[in-house]
């Protein structure tokens, strides 16, 4: 029985005594418990040591980019939720930004604030799932439930904001769908007051746990040069010590008005760019998001939350590329308009896709258990890879 669609070269080795050993080919996924959605890795292993892990993607391909060409500018927003359903706000935001850039629409100030508030809440939301499931993949189940508990509050907040808990469909071309509900900002402040100590508690619970750190440090080290060569983005890139954040280096929306730090990996427990650095960068980014949220809520201006956009929105012919810092890094939207009510072409560039192409490179000579840590530390989200 072969692994369909994959010809893995099985290597036979003979040691001095004429004893022939053969590599084992393992098919990890698509229904493996820790491949985060439907990923598949074809693993060539010698016992517990992997020679190679070849990612096999495409199980979650839903032709989202093609759908954009058929449903029109406004109609595509709900579909963008599904591009990365763990952090749907960013995809909403990316599409809205692209359409606004093509149509030359000025977004009201309050709408921009609403967007950034929603984005940063969503970043916490996504990072909580990432660090939680990372702990679970390493074998500690409890941190996961604690992260999910906090995430549940965020889900409640999002539900109140836009009626959905996962696929938000909050942003519109020209602004956001609804203004912040009355009393909602107080709840966000309340959440932040509660959440910031919880991050410390999370650090005490798991981050610096000896076993946990031992599993992550010096595993799958990515040097800054490699990270740039392989086009890693977001926390994965910053984990390797490259300080690059679209919010700061190519600012959009109201980010220039906000003050925040860009945490980078420092190799504090082991080597720069190991799994632990990528993990700890996410923990620190959550704190930064809290900081941004507090600033936004303090400076929140009054005014309309959506610009006047015609129902049959027809941006002039042309193309544009917008980028924003999603929870998984630099997300790029290349949209071509031919002046009709339907986009001519849409191409999404996502962080997970860059990361998964790196797994094959970094997974050489690791243990099988390390592959799980690598997948988790890259924060791979299958829908974002396949779209």
């Amino acid at each position, binding site marked *: 029985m072969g692994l369909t669609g994959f010809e893995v070269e099985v290597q036979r080795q003979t040691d001095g005594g004429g004893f022939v050993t053969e590599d084992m080919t393992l098919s990890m996924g698509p229904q493996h*418990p*820790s491949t985060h959605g439907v990923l598949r890795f074809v693993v060539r292993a010698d016992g517990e040591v992997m020679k190679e892990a070849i990612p096999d993607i495409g199980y979650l391909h839903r032709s989202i980019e093609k759908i954009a060409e058929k449903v029109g500018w406004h109609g595509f927003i709900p579909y963008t939720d599904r591009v990365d359903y763990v952090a749907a706000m960013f995809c909403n935001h990316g599409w809205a930004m692209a359409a606004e850039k093509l149509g030359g629409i000025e977004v009201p100030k309050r709408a921009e604030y609403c967007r950034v508030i929603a984005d940063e809440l969503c970043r916490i939301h996504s990072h909580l799932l990432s660090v939680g499931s990372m702990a679970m993949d390493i*074998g*500690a189940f409890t941190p996961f*439930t604690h992260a999910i508990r906090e995430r549940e509050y965020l889900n409640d907040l999002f*539900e109140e904001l836009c009626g959905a808990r996962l696929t938000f469909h909050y942003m519109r071309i020209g602004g956001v769908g609804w203004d912040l509900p009355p009393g909602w900002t107080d709840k966000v402040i309340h959440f932040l007051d509660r959440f910031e100590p919880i991050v410390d508690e999370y650090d005490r619970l798991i981050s610096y*746990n000896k076993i946990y750190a031992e*599993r992550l440090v010096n595993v799958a080290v990515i040097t800054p040069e490699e990270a740039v060569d392989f086009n890693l983005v977001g926390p994965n890139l910053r984990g390797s010590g490259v300080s690059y954040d679209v919010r700061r280096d190519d600012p959009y929306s109201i980010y220039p008005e906000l003050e925040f730090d860009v945490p980078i990996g420092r190799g504090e427990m082991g080597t720069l760019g190991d799994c632990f650095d990528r993990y700890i960068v996410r923990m620190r980014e959550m704190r930064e998001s809290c900081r941004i949220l507090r600033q936004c809520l303090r400076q929140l201006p009054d005014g309309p939350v959506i610009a006047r956009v015609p129902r049959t929105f027809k941006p002039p012919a042309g193309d544009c590329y917008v980028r924003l810092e999603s929870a998984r890094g630099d997300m790029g939207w290349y949209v071509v308009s031919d002046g009709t009510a339907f986009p001519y072409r849409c191409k999404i560039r996502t962080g997970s896709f860059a990361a998964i192409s790196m797994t094959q490179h970094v997974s050489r000579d690791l243990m099988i258990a390390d592959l799980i840590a690598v997948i988790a530390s890259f924060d791979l989200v299958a829908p974002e890879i396949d779209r």
Partner: protein
Amino acid sequence: MTEFPSMESLVHGLVESGVAPAGIPMWMHQLLAMLIFGGIVVFGFVLPIAGITTWVERRVMGRIQSRIGPNRVGPLGFLQWLADGVKNMLKEDIVPTAADGPLFRAAPYVVITGFVASFAAIPFAGNLIIADLNVGILYITAVTALVVVGILMAGWASNNKWSLLGGIRSAAQIVSYEIPAGLSIFPVVLLAGTLSMQGIIRAQGAAPWTWYLFDNPFTFIAFFVLFVSSLAEGNRTPFDLPEAESELVAGFATEYSGMRNLLFFMAEWGNLYVIGAIATTLFLGGWQIPWALDDHPVLRNALQFGVFFTKSYAFVVLAIWLRWTLPRIRVDQMMEMCWKYLVPIALVNFLGTATWMVLFPQGLAPVRWLLLLAAVVAIAAFVRRVAFHIRYARLERRHLSFNPLATARSPG
């Protein structure tokens, strides 16, 4: 020292008082008594303890993970373990086509045999033991090693690569950790001068400072080495590599379903109790109670059983607590820990205890008190910390949710 009537004398008493029919050779009476008691132990204690431990684990884990745990079947969800047992028995017993049928079917029974057989030498009370073997502790170490055979069989016969990896990991792990575990038993055997479980307990007393745990610094360390090694032998976190669900799907049990899967897990949860019972017997004074109660054998045995059960079950709760707190170590780290740290430490303990016995044949009282004090301080600090966290969690509970709808939906 008080007279402890053994099971033999009990049987003698029954025969003399006419409760048991005379005219049958005494060894048959003995055998019958052992079988009956063994049956009572297996069906009245071993299987429920394994089942109830699953419920305890799920409740404790629920609390640790800030959720509720099973609460639907019976009061506090107590009957959940029975419901799960019935569910598993009613499920289809699937044998994969490519599996090695006979081996695949036999594996769970080997595992459960290794686990149940260890109960034969566990001293529940002064008179409650199936067989007080003169090689008791050695026997338990030997039969629990049967588990690895079963797990290896399951891993191989499933004809699944994940199962195979789990089985191999398990074999490597259990065989390796047998060594520090065995070496940690030796200091106690040296001190007690016997391998019999009852003998080891009788050599200790009811008061903590007479326990072997506090006898000398080496036994103190040996206790922890034994506990860690037992966790590894019992496939418990942080050593649950053989069934590492996030790596190997379900390890050796991947292809099992229904009753056979249940048998594996019964052995796992029951083994927790065996771990506790061994540690209690060797280091914590077993069933020793401060009163002789010579005239009330039933009361005495009941008290002793209570004491023994409480001590050994404390280990079960501790193991559960550890499981839901710690991550899993990697297979090479697991081996490194065993061979580079635990085995040398255990060897030093063994030699150290022997030297100690030569230097201080009567023991050294200040050292005992110092060790006891250290343990009490550590436990007090731990309890204080836990109490603080529980208070902290209570404060936060009112803010469980921001959304009034969600609050209304969430179960009591």
